[in-house]
């Protein structure tokens, strides 16, 4: 009855069609972007980072805080990247050029958190999940919501090899199952199990304020939490 699936089922379906991610571009070098980029490097990905500010500042920042990452302009960073992680403050998502992300698999790691960041009209006036709003802006991209519900330092601490008992799991939502499957493989190399929650609309189940956002769960527990949130009558 549950519509939730473990993503490996989806993944196996698309295995032959999806090229394996080798290059990851991270847009944003704040706490989240830096942590994602370091995690990507540790997992062996060719990692590019881009941030606002002078190029020389970003280069030095990458050299010291994200050693191994290559600092580039956003356009260069994403141009041949297999996966793009958008980790800018949500209030600035429109500062990212949507056209350069056309056709790309884009991870939306952003959160709408008015008590801390203030209200943003785009998200106050729209009842859709935040990633659906973001996805309409990145309309040519295959948007995947994940990485938003793990703390930036937990990302570097909680990862474990595949098969580790009780390994922490992350939720994934996307309207594009092949893109979700590609992201699942990446998160596995990052050190996390995954659960595919469904289309982007299901991303509301792990937005700020939810049990999933606030907690840390193994795959089975995350599956149950998602079912509780998305199908409360079952």
């Amino acid at each position, binding site marked *: 009855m549950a519509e939730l699936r473990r993503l490996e089922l989806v993944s196996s379906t698309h295995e032959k069609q999806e090229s394996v991610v080798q290059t990851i571009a991270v847009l944003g070098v*704040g706490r989240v972007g830096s942590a994602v980029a370091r995690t990507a490097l540790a997992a062996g990905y060719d990692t590019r980072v881009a941030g606002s500010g002078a190029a020389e500042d970003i280069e030095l920042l990458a050299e010291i805080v994200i050693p191994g990452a290559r600092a580039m302009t956003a356009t260069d960073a994403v141009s041949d990247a297999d996966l793009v992680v958008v980790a800018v403050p949500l209030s600035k998502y429109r500062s990212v050029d949507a056209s350069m992300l056309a056709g790309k698999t884009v991870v939306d790691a952003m959160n709408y958190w008015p008590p801390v960041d203030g209200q943003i009209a785009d998200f106050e006036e729209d009842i859709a999940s935040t990633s659906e709003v973001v996805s309409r802006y990145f309309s040519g991209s295959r948007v995947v919501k994940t990485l938003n519900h793990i703390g930036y330092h937990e990302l570097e601490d909680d990862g474990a090899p595949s098969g580790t008992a009780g390994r922490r799991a992350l939720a994934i939502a996307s309207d594009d199952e092949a893109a979700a499957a590609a992201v699942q493989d990446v998160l596995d190399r990052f050190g996390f199990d995954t659960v595919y929650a469904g289309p982007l609309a299901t991303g509301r189940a792990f937005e700020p304020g939810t049990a999933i956002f606030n907690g840390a769960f193994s795959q089975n527990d995350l599956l149950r939490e998602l079912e509780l949130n998305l199908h409360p009558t079952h």
Partner: protein
Amino acid sequence: MHEASPLGMELGVYSFGDTQRNADGTLRATAEAIANLHEAIVLADAVGLDYFGVGEHHTVDMPASSPGAMVAAAAGATQQIRLGSSVTVLSTDDPVRVFQQFATADAISGGRVEITAGRGSSVESYPLFGYELSDHDQLYAEKLDLLMTLNSGERTSWCGSVRSGIDDLVVVPRPVQGSLPIWLGTGGSAPSTVRAGRLGLPVSYGIIGGIPARFGRLADLYRATAQRSGHHGPNIKVSAGTFGLIAPTKKDAVDRFYPGWRNLQLLMTQRRHWPEPERARYEEQTHAPFAYYVGDPDDVAERIIDLYRHLGHMRHFFQMDLGGLPHEHFLEAITLLGTEVKPRVQRLIDRL
């Protein structure tokens, strides 16, 4: 290895004010919290601590909303301690007024006053003073620029977009030492670190969770950015503010800090949807390598030095009074920090 300060490690306290609680959990008067805070600063001075930072929060449980007033009162009641804000939410204040208030307190203190400017961790000041949180970046950048301009000389000319320009006007009183130390306070993002380095301002990290040693790479980035921007000398320095409480034993400290920590977490659960507090998670945080410097004097002194090895900071100051910590426990922790932790830290530093 980082450059060692010949003075060793400065130790201190910071507080947003902590409204005491009645037995039934209801909050007591905010005026009492301010009086308690003043008493704590005077004690910190008397026991030989180096620094006390105040504010800025605007909530009933944390009522130290006016660091300038608090620092001015303390300036007249203390002898040697350095006094500052932690932080001044500059985006929602007028830099001219901030500068005048702190320069006035500086005159009263004989030159012991500093300003730490930052975004702050609370957002209540935005609606209170009629600002939009979404304008934060522009407000902060311009107001920091104005504050630095005011600090650089008696006559100021400045123009920007967030307030009217200033055409060759006098801003007094002038600081006793010629200028006020202005720090940039941040929770530890790399871009804020770059900003501090570029501007050549000392940087103050608020480390309220995670593994503090990880701030070492940010401190490296700060120093490298400052150097590349042509900033050298004593103004390029790092301080760290963390949670902490000292008691005669580790167990006492952990037990004393917990109820207030839990109260704070519960408030944040309501206000910001933080997770429900858990005792086990709390206790984990009170041990190395984590971020709560809650312990006996030996434990806290050793962990300060451990962080020093990573951060090279010249000042470590603690937020102790949280969520209705009994005032006597706050005062005892301040006394222990000055009389027990400080000499231990100095001995450990001398051995490095």
